[in-house]
């Protein structure tokens, strides 16, 4: 029963005139929580009433505290008629329930009315007294922290990452209840707002319970969405990643004192006894470089590996599952030749080859080739089909072909796979021998030795992960060392019919609406749950096919049109280090927390607007050199899809794909050449109007083609910019009555580790015609010019020349031939691979039909960003480090009406493409005063609100940066310069160095070893140890730094102080001006330190008007609504004592209009994390600043 909620209504200001006669208002306030309502006195005849009420006290369950919002209604007292409502304020109490977040809510809130918008402001004070509830069976989950941020929040460190949590709740949409016919629009809107607020509270509470069950204390990457299913109801669903977070300022001394990561072997050894015997013990050694260095004899490891592997296999055999078997095999391959956990991208090459095929062809081909379902390659086509088929099946009208495909392919394939697995084992072994003989790969770098151990570790991680139903992570960036390898994007879509599935028992009659809704909601969520379960299973299996055991950067979305709903899920298949995972044993937790402490510190620090301190860099190197995540995780001999593999251009050791697509942010440690840019593929396809099942079938038939073409477009555009990797890929498919929209956005970069992409070649099909040839050569020229221009623009100048020279030390040709041999041994389908190998650089576009012409057109119509501008949809742009604190978050919405209904696909495409391009152009123009600047986290959302309308909404932040890198001062600049120096050095020296005899040991070195580059190269062994020495040194300084901090910490109590300070500053302003609240979709604000997270902001608003013209038409209406939403978000943050919202996201913007009736309605849902930040300069100015998080950063920065 634990909780007393107290609220006090202080005053109002700028109230609207409610009494025409006196031009004044007699205002009073109703405060409602649950079923209890209090009222203030009427404050007569004033537009600025001073109620100064008593404290209204509500004694409530904490369950209710979580679910319910505090509802404040301002009314105008009327003696003779009913009181008129002025507006309402909903206050989410949740932030007050966590001891670490806000303690009081106090400030001015806009009084909001769904018809009139903001009407004045009200000053409110809210407090909560919470009693401890130790009841084991409680239904509440107070204290679990929620973060929208998709990385470990800045002032926390992750002790453990527990994994995926999801939940959904369903209710009837008040808008469609019978009562809606007799109540006012205002009442209906308010019912809806309140319901959604309740539902999200409930959802959060339920997820919190799940997290507590898992032993976590926080949800990171919390993504909550609404599905407005119309007649069939309202679904609120959420996913997130459960974590155990530790506040950095609370770090106890041992944690920080223990050496960062593995640089101190002694510590590790001490650990191992504590750790559980055998298996765990092994793991603990894996990470110690010294250890591995000494045990790096090649026989040593070849002996140990088989045994371990065997055990692993046994384990897996029990499950007797095709993919699993394959996985363990993959592990094996890793150890042997030194292809550790690598990652593979989809084949781009394939894509072009395919472009000449008719889709159906490519289809059948894929089905025969392998069972991988990866959304990237042409395969996509198949992938998306399969998701759709279940629906159809359930509806009893499956498409025969699809079904056939599905049912026939998988089983046989699995068999063949396990076969090949066996084969491969032997092959890779011999390969290893070969390597050893030639003296190539065996020269030991620490990284390599770690291989076997890593594999071991990976197996353990796998077990840990596989125990989970869904090894998914909504995070998009990770503490260094967590993400080992990236496989590629996995996605699944499913088309569902909302009707009938919904309430089978009740049928279609309207009468059910009169029933008690609760009586059947019970089984309702099951249906939706099942839908998502299905999709997630599919994603999981895709990831397995890529040789990965986890999916990161995972997200889910829906698109609804009438009764058809497309469910989509996507993520990036990856292999993770077990380090932050929960194993069964308790001591793991123990060990983890100790080992990881410092690593996380650096992790938390790394994002501070730059690429991290050198210290953290150093560690990252050891654990995961900048290229490791690119290495393919799957077995190169049994690739899930045709890909062209080469040796990593950084380490020259492991295989990398030629192109990498991911949904995550660029890892901080990644080596990138030049700058990146936003790449978008846009597609519009007409669809016949249809109803029900027919519609669903039509959509699921179209989806594969849509997705396939999107990928082709992405690939082409990527090549055109001469880049080789996509990050933050987000594909959105939107369905309308008569068309399907597809929009894929991603940030293209040139990963140094991946091979340089070849150019694009255009081939005509009918060479007879001379003018045609000329046309083609013209186009070719244009394309070549664009590529050259882009290279210059994005500063992509990979060392091409050196690359050729380098070919010699590594016997690539030989390698390849071996590779091919093994292919022919294993199965013929893989032999296709070597065909694609032949034309390495030729990315051929054949213009044989209008489609291709269109593709090329769209390629060339993308206008370059104006000078001084960059854009990306990831958090920050690689290659830019010196952000200033100037930032401007904005939302832009456009709705385009297609007047001509009989548009062709091409026409539609052009319209859609222009719409997006023009929108971008407009943005650049508007933000021209911020140049040089970068649009970060550009998030496009498309929708088809009506027949002939296309709606595009963009939310992004423009951040200025300093062009002149040398002008900065302080730690950042040092870091940046270092970073810069490092990358420069890398460019200049890495390859020449590799030419030296000891090429094998270079990767680590060249990657970051500044100091060594100059001197003569010592022997490999020496160098290794010297490296370790260096690291230890660094670690030492860091340790000193943190200890220093600790002592200062003890002197002053950290947080209360920060809080009171900020409060005070607020107060002083309160009289005159409003606290400035910054908003950003990023997880940080450059040049600042986030010192406190105050809680999640999750708000839902409805605005409606019946006087559209008077409010300035649709644009005027939406303009003021968006401004109002911003204002309300800012007010709530300010009331919590915060000064910024990070990870801000506008998840929903549903706009409907009826110009004939002069009406419009709009729903907006936004979310983010309220925080307090302090300028870094201020921190430095006041040395005794008690916040250890910040102090640590600076000290470690100085230490380096």
């Amino acid at each position, binding site marked *: 029963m634990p909780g007393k909620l107290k609220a006090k209504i202080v005053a109002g200001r700028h109230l609207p005139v409610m009494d025409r006669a006196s031009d004044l208002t007699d205002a009073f306030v109703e405060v409602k929580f649950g079923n209890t309502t209090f009222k203030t006195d009427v404050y007569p005849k004033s537009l600025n009433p001073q109620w100064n009420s008593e404290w209204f006290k509500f004694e409530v369950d904490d369950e209710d505290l979580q679910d319910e919002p505090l509802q404040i209604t301002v009314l105008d007292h009327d003696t003779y008629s009913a009181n008129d409502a002025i507006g309402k304020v909903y206050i989410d109490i949740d932030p007050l329930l966590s001891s670490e977040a806000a303690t009081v809510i106090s400030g001015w809130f806009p009084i909001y009315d769904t018809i009139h918008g903001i009407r004045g402001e009200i000053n409110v004070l809210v407090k909560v007294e919470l009693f401890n509830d130790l009841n084991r069976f409680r239904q509440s989950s107070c204290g679990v922290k929620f973060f929208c941020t998709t990385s470990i929040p800045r002032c926390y460190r992750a002790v453990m990452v527990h994994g995926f949590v999801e939940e959904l709740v369903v209710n009837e949409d008040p808008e469609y209840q019978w009562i809606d016919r007799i109540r006012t629009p205002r009442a209906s809107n308010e019912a809806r707002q309140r319901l959604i607020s309740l539902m999200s509270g409930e959802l959060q509470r339920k997820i919190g319970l799940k997290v507590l069950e898992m032993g976590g204390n926080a949800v990171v990457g919390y993504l909550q969405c609404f599905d407005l299913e119309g007649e069939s109801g309202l679904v609120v669903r959420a996913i997130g990643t459960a974590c155990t977070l530790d506040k950095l300022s609370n770090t106890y001394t041992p944690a920080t004192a223990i050496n960062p990561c593995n640089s101190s072997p002694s510590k590790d050894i001490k650990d191992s006894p504590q750790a559980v015997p055998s298996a765990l013990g092994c793991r603990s050694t894996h990470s110690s470089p010294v250890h591995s260095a000494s045990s790096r004899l090649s026989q040593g490891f070849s002996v140990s590996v088989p045994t371990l592997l065997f055990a692993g296999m046994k384990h897996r055999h029990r499950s007797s599952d095709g993919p699993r078997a394959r996985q363990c095999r993959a592990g094996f391959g890793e150890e042997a030749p030194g292809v550790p956990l690598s990652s593979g991208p989809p084949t781009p090459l394939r894509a072009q080859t395919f472009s000449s095929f008719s889709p159906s062809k490519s289809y059948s081909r894929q089905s025969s080739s392998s069972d991988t379902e990866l959304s990237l390659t042409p395969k996509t086509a198949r992938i998306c089909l399969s998701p759709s088929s279940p629906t159809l099946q359930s509806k009893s009208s499956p498409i025969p072909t699809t079904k056939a495909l599905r049912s026939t392919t998988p089983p046989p394939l699995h068999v063949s796979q396990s076969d090949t697995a066996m084969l491969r084992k032997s092959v890779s072994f011999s390969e290893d021998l070969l390597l050893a003989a030639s003296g190539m790969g065996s020269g030991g770098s620490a990284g390599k030795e770690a291989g076997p151990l890593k594999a071991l570790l990976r197996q353990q991680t796998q077990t840990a992960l596989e125990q989970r139903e869904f090894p998914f992570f909504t995070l998009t960036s990770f503490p260094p060392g967590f993400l080992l390898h990236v496989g590629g994007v996995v996605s699944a879509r499913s088309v569902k019919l909302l009707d009938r599935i919904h309430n089978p028992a009740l049928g279609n009659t309207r009468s059910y609406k009169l029933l008690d809704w609760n009586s059947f909601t019970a089984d309702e969520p099951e249906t939706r749950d099942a839908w998502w379960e299905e999709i997630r299973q599919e994603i999981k299996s895709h990831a397995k096919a890529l040789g990965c055991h986890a999916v990161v950067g995972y997200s889910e979305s829906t698109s609804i049109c009438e009764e058809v709903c497309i469910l989509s899920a996507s993520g990036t298949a990856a292999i993770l280090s077990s380090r932050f995972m929960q194993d069964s044993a308790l001591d793991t937790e123990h060990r983890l927390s100790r080992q990881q402490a410092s690593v996380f510190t650096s992790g938390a620090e790394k994002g501070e607007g730059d690429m991290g301190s050198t210290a953290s860099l150093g560690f990252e190197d050891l654990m995961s050199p900048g290229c490791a995540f690119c290495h393919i995780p799957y077995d190169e001999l049994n690739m899930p899809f045709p890909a062209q593999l080469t040796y990593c251009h950084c380490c020259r050791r492991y295989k990398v794909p030629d192109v990498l697509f991911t949904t995550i942010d660029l890892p901080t440690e990644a080596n990138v050449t030049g700058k990146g840019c936003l790449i978008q593929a846009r597609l519009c396809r007409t669809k016949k109007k249809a109803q029900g099942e027919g519609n669903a079938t039509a959509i699921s038939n179209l989806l594969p083609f849509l997705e396939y073409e999107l990928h082709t477009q992405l690939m082409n555009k990527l090549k055109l910019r001469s880049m080789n990797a996509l990050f933050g890929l987000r594909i959105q498919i939107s369905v309308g009555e008569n068309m399907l929209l597809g929009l894929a956005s991603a940030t293209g970069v040139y990963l140094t580790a991946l091979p340089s992409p070849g150019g694009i070649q255009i081939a005509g099909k009918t060479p007879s015609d001379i003018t045609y040839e000329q046309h083609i050569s013209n186009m070719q020229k244009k394309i070549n010019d664009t590529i050259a221009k882009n290279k210059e623009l994005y500063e992509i100048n990979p060392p091409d020349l050196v690359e050729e020279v380098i070919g010699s030390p590594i016997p690539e040709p030989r390698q390849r031939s071996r590779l091919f041999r093994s292919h022919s041994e294993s199965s013929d389908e893989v032999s296709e691979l070597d065909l694609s190998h032949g034309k390495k650089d030729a990315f051929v576009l054949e213009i044989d039909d209008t489609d291709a012409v269109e593709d090329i057109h769209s390629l060339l119509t993308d206008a370059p960003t104006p000078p001084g501008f960059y854009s990306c949809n990831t958090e920050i742009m690689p290659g830019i480090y010196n952000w200033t604190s100037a930032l401007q978050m*904005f939302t832009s919405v456009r709705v385009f009406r297609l*007047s001509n209904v009989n548009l062709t696909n091409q026409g539609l495409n052009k*319209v859609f493409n222009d719409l997006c391009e023009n929108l971008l*152009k407009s943005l650049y123009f508007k933000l021209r005063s911020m140049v040089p600047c970068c649009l970060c986290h550009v998030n496009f959302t498309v929708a088809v609100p009506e027949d002939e309308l296309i709606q595009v909404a963009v939310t992004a932040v423009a951040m200025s940066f300093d062009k002149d890198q040398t002008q900065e001062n302080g730690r950042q600049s040092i870091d940046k310069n270092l970073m810069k120096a490092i990358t420069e050095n890398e460019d200049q020296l890495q390859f020449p160095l590799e030419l030296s005899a000891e090429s094998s040991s270079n990767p680590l070195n060249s990657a970051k070893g500044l100091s060594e580059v100059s001197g003569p190269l010592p022997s490999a062994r020496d160098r290794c140890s010297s490296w370790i020495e260096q690291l230890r040194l660094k670690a030492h300084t860091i340790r000193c730094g943190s200890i220093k901090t600790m002592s200062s910490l003890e002197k002053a109590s950290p947080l209360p102080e920060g809080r009171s300070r900020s409060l005070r500053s607020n107060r002083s302003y309160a009289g005159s*001006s*409003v606290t*400035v609240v910054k908003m950003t979709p990023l997880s940080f604000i450059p040049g600042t330190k986030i010192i406190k997270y105050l809680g999640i902001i999750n708000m839902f608003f409805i605005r409606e008007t019946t006087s559209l013209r008077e409010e300035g038409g649709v644009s005027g209406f939406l*303009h003021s609504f968006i401004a109002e939403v911003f204002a309300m978000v800012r007010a709530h943050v300010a009331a919590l004592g915060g000064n910024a919202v990070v990870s801000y996201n506008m998840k929903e913007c549903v*706009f409907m209009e009826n110009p004939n009736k002069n009406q419009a309605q709009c729903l907006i849902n936004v979310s983010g994390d309220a925080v307090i930040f302090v300028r870094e300069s201020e921190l430095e100015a006041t040395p005794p600043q008690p916040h250890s998080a910040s102090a640590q950063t600076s000290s470690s920065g100085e230490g380096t």
Partner: protein
Amino acid sequence: MSMELDVFVGNTTIIDEEVYQLWLDGHSVSDAVRMRLESDALSECEASGEVLHSDTMDQYRTFQMCERLLHCPSKLANQLLFQIPAHRQAMLIERYYEFDHTFAREVLGKKLSKGTKKDLDDISLKTGVALKSCRRQFDNFKRVFKVVEELKGPLVENVQHHFLLSDSLARDYAAVVFFANSRFETGKRKLQYLSFQDFAFCAGQLISYWTVGAVDNMMEDMDVDLEKEFLHDLKDLKVLVNDKDMLDQHKSLVCYQLKGKIKAFSEMEANFKNLSRALINIASKLTNTKDVRDLFIDLVEKFIEPCRSDKWTVGDLTLFLTHYTSTAHTLEMFRFQILWERYMGVIKSCILKMYHD
């Protein structure tokens, strides 16, 4: 095919000063787009008409939404709807309240009523200021007038405090309010040569020296009205012209001082009695509201025009007025030194300001 809806909203409200000026000047969106297209400043951005149109629309909408707040500038600082940095707020307010002096000259001294508002199209035609802009400026005058009219304390400070304007702009508003309140005649043909600045200066003088607040800041009275008592006392100055001895003595003293120093000495000598009589008459008549209104026309007709026809230079006039004022103190029988000083100080600086072509 058309853009149905097109909005851009920033967390920090983006304000383009150039577009703001176009909006204030009363240009329509399409005019503004055309003018922006023609201006050189934007040519480097390679902005197309479409982009400019979208941007201009957004800006105009923002201004329209802000306008409500600008009507009460103190609200702008603590409203929550738009997040605008303080210096931008100041700019918005200052620019919004700035006015065309040609327009203000036309309205000066007129009653700020609906009747005048109806004449705005004529004024717009005459001054070349767009009607929209005229309306805004007129409404600003009216609004400031309404707020300040009943307030106690110094006029300029009141304007500044309530409308957060810069010092110089607040002074201009004070002048407008002052003229509107006292309804000074400014429209006569003979006064046409005077600019708004001339009148604003005079108003400043009147406010500073002739109102109740001028004597005693602590007095809880208004700055808008001239001090009745003072005006009444001015009748006493008649002695300077009615007493023949005094007039002669005064004349001889002034002539003595000015001999050889001014070019128009002979004309001055010949006209002294007329000039002195004119100034004293103006003073003694100020008890009548009607005559207060005619203050400026009287000054021009009775004093400035005679001097001008005699080709006095500004220097001559300055010397004359200086000595005309100071020598009165040496007159034995003259007892109204303070009153004289207060009257002549303002009259002198007003005449000097108004003495031009």
